[in-house]
């Protein structure tokens, strides 16, 4: 694994570019935090470099190729405050956050703050560590120093840079070499009502050692929070032969902003699945960026997004094949209701040395109304000559023949539609290997779908 440090290239705020009101506020916030003085020595220059880069980059606009379909103006003009106070969360509020039939290790954050009383203990069986980022700096300082902010490309990513500048709290999950843990780590980021609309910058680092196996579920959820901004980054480091199932369950408030990046660094023969379930959020950007850096690595990107009302969910996938003989599979299905909008950009980059790459991508979408809109854009950048890359996208409506078939058996039309919608998502759900987590996700989708309650009786 490369440990070249490209984090300290920049150290001062230089450029003065056009900035939204939001950016001014964030720069001020950074200054108020004594220019990122907290935490270990090595982190300060990283933070400063990151804020400098945020300032230079500014909010992306629709003129940026990568943001063509997502207008960030509503976000850029808002001034979100670093959270102070906010409604508390009790254990009873979290009663539903369990995987039936499977114990999990929970880490709970409320408005960005780690809540040890609501969380399970750090040490897990087999030497597995699941702790807050601040705890990790005590428990595994070297490992955190080695990996944190070493993979995320914040040079070119405004939100990643902003998150890195404010990196303070989040999660650290570590599965040591050769350890296979069944118990999933469940990271729960709760937003509650706060005195002012709040911004949080959750930062997660997941390190899975050589031939180790683990499962991490990140969940972003509103329990009373309405308008807020979650700017999350997760870095995943998968060692040689490591196996990781990663889930990102996003059910923010429908007025919330959620910009999230999952950056995966894969060593040889590692196998990482990045599952996404996006139900909530007013404006959502879901970045998934695996780099297949070692030979024979396999990556699965699999997810569903179900925007309704005026929600906008932008899925931005960038799969980088940087080594030979790697496979990647992308399957994303969207169901868009009302006047919701959705985006799927699937970029596959095959580096020159990545011969025998096998990359596949499909994006299927259902539009339930005439007002709903979907933009699907595959992009292949191939610099190797012996590769297999396929992509396909469809946008359509529910199949009338299927609806009629169900109705002709006595199933009421509403139920028939709901069954078909669930069936459309089920294709992706079936790729979620752990049954208790799949059940959990199925339940959320069942509750989310119009007339979803009819499905409960049928399970």
């Amino acid at each position, binding site marked *: 694994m490369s440990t070249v440090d490209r984090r300290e290239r920049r150290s001062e705020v230089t450029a003065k570019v056009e900035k939204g009101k939001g950016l001014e506020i964030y720069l001020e916030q950074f200054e108020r935090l004594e220019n990122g003085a907290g935490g270990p020595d090595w982190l300060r220059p990283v933070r400063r470099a990151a804020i400098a880069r945020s300032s230079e980059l500014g909010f992306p606009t629709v003129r940026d190729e990568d943001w063509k379909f997502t207008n960030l103006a509503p976000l850029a003009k808002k001034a979100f405050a670093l959270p102070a106070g906010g409604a508390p969360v009790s254990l009873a509020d979290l009663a539903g956050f369990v995987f039936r039939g499977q114990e999990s290790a929970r880490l709970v954050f409320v408005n960005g703050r780690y809540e040890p009383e609501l969380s399970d203990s750090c040490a897990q069986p087999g030497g597995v560590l699941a702790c807050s980022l601040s705890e990790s700096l005590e428990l595994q300082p070297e490992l955190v120093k080695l990996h944190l902010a070493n993979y995320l490309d914040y040079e070119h990513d405004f939100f990643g840079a902003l998150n890195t500048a404010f990196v303070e709290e989040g999660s650290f999950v570590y599965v040591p070499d050769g350890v296979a843990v069944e118990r999933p780590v469940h990271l729960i980021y709760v937003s509650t009502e706060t005195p002012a609309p709040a911004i949080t910058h959750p930062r997660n680092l997941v390190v899975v050692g050589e031939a180790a196996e683990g499962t991490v579920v990140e969940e972003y959820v509103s329990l009373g929070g309405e308008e807020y901004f979650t700017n999350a980054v997760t870095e995943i480091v998968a060692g040689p032969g490591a196996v990781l199932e990663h889930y990102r369950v996003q059910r923010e408030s429908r007025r919330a902003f959620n910009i999230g990046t999952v950056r995966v660094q894969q060593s040889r023969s590692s196998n990482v699945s990045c599952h996404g379930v996006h139900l909530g959020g007013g404006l959502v950007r879901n970045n998934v960026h695996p780099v297949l850096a070692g030979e024979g690595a396999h990556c699965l990107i699999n997810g569903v997004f179900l925007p309704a009302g005026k929600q906008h969910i932008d899925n931005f996938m960038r799969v980088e094949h940087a080594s030979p003989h790697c496979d990647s599979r992308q399957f994303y299905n969207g169901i868009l209701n009302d006047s919701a909008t959705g985006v799927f950009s699937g970029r596959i980059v095959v580096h020159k040395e990545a011969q025998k790459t096998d990359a596949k991508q499909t994006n299927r979408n259902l539009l339930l109304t005439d007002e709903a809109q979907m933009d699907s854009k595959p992009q292949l950048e191939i610099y190797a000559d012996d590769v297999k890359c396929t992509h396909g996208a469809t946008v359509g409506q529910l*199949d*009338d*023949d*299927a609806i*009629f*078939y*169900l*109705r*002709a*058996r*006595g*199933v*009421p*039309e509403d*139920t*028939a539609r709901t*069954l*078909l919608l*669930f*069936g*459309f*998502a*089920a*294709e992706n759900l079936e790729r979620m290997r752990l049954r208790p987590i799949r059940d959990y996700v199925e339940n959320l989708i069942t509750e989310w779908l119009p007339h979803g309650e*009819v*499905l409960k*009786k*049928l*399970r």
Partner: protein
Amino acid sequence: MLEIKNLHVSVEGKKILKGLNLKLNAGEVHSIMGPNGSGKSTLASVLAGRAGYDITDGEVLYRGRDLLELDPEERACEGVFLAFQYPVEIPGVGSIQFLTAALNAVRQHRGLEELDALDALRLFKEKVKALQVSDELLGRSVNEGFSGGEKKKNEIFQMAVLEPTLAILDETDSGLDIDALRIVAEGVNALRSPERAFLVITHYQRLLDYIVPDFVHVLVDGRIVRSGDKQLALHLEEYGYAWAGERHPAEAAT
């Protein structure tokens, strides 16, 4: 049980059924035979309530009620069942889930208690056995990846579960080998009863060796041109549809 009077149906402005009359009583098995494009499948679709058909004249009474007024699901709940010529594959929707939803909708309508998942599954397993279909099919998505024969058997299996009053079989024999045909026919025959009527639509006489009809009707160009008993089917086999069409519709006794 079913009375079709002077039924005229158009599809996208094209006249398909041009004054069809037909009467079925409980306990009877009627067969409709006819060449391609004569309107057989249109009749089946109209009876089941598929959208896209303009009824320009005539009426259909089912147990004294105007059938055409009812939604497809209401018809099913009232006991009308269509075995599809082309059963639809529905990925992601489990067969058990689908059939439980259907069965309980029908039961609820008939004033019966809904079955819980376990009792429903027990019923399905019992019914599926009779059709010599592996109950592994129950574990799959509706019709997904089924062979042609499996799809048709699955239709008859669903019929056995839903116990309709009027069953319409739309070319259920097409694409079946002789063994599958026999099994399907046995499934149908097992359901024959004095309370139930069947409308068996077919292109070939072959099916009628196994499902012996009480009446055979010949449909040509949107009208029934000949009616008779099972001998008519044999006659057709010998002389072809052209022979039947030569006779004036008015001569066709109903």
